[in-house]
């Protein structure tokens, strides 16, 4: 390992906090964060499925927890994460194919990702409310 004093005297490369805030940057980190939420969120799906497989008592217990307002809030957050991450994924596919790299398109698509994610989450929430 490098000597600590030597490492400290080296010039540091510009880090996150020196950059001006831009939308594409924010959407990049939100893509990663929503991915992290979904990672943890799979526990909710697995527990719910295992409860359903374990019989009506277990299902009622777990489903009851999910029906509380905090449970519903978490599930709504996960639905948003899924939709936002999915649209973010489409952006990544576009970049992989070589499209959308110019700043104007990149910014527009980033804004679209944010707005469409929220709107679609709203639509899913309303649809779920109607079906319930």
């Amino acid at each position, binding site marked *: 390992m490098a000597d600590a004093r030597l490492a400290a005297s080296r010039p540091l490369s510009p880090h996150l906090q020196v950059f001006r805030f831009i939308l594409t940057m924010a959407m990049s980190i939100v893509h990663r964060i929503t991915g*992290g939420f*979904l990672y943890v969120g799979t526990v909710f799906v697995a527990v719910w499925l295992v409860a359903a497989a374990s019989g009506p008592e277990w299902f009622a217990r777990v489903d009851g927890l999910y029906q509380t307002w905090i449970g519903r809030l978490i599930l709504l957050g996960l639905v948003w994460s899924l939709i936002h991450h999915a649209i973010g*994924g489409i952006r990544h596919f576009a970049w992989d194919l070589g499209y959308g790299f110019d700043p104007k398109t990149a910014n527009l698509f980033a804004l679209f990702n944010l707005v469409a994610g929220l709107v679609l989450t709203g639509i899913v929430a309303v649809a779920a409310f109607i079906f319930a």
Partner: protein
Amino acid sequence: MDKSFRFQTSLKHARGFGSGKSGTTHFWQQRVTGVAALLLSLVYVVLLIKLQGDDYPAVVATLGNPFVAVLMLAFLGVSVWHMKIGMQVIIEDYVNQPLLRVLALMVNSFFSALVGIASAVALIKITFGA
């Protein structure tokens, strides 16, 4: 030999012979599972909406439908793999301490496997009508 006289391109190294000996495997798996998860998540969201307000027998009947079970198993399978290799990148980016990094990567594998197996066992049990 001068670089300009070589017919080899760096693609050779990218295809399975980079320093990690895995080339673009990780990148490609992330895309394939991403496309699959994108399509299957549409089914998943529709299913979620449909199941709202359903009682236990109705939920089990829906999940036990072979078409639903197959699509759900596929969705959970690709999602678990997608999230496993995704979290691997996050750990590799942020966890620098070697021992901690190895432990985090292991926990990531264990967690992903556990979630995948639990969901799969539950779905299979329901669809085989237990």
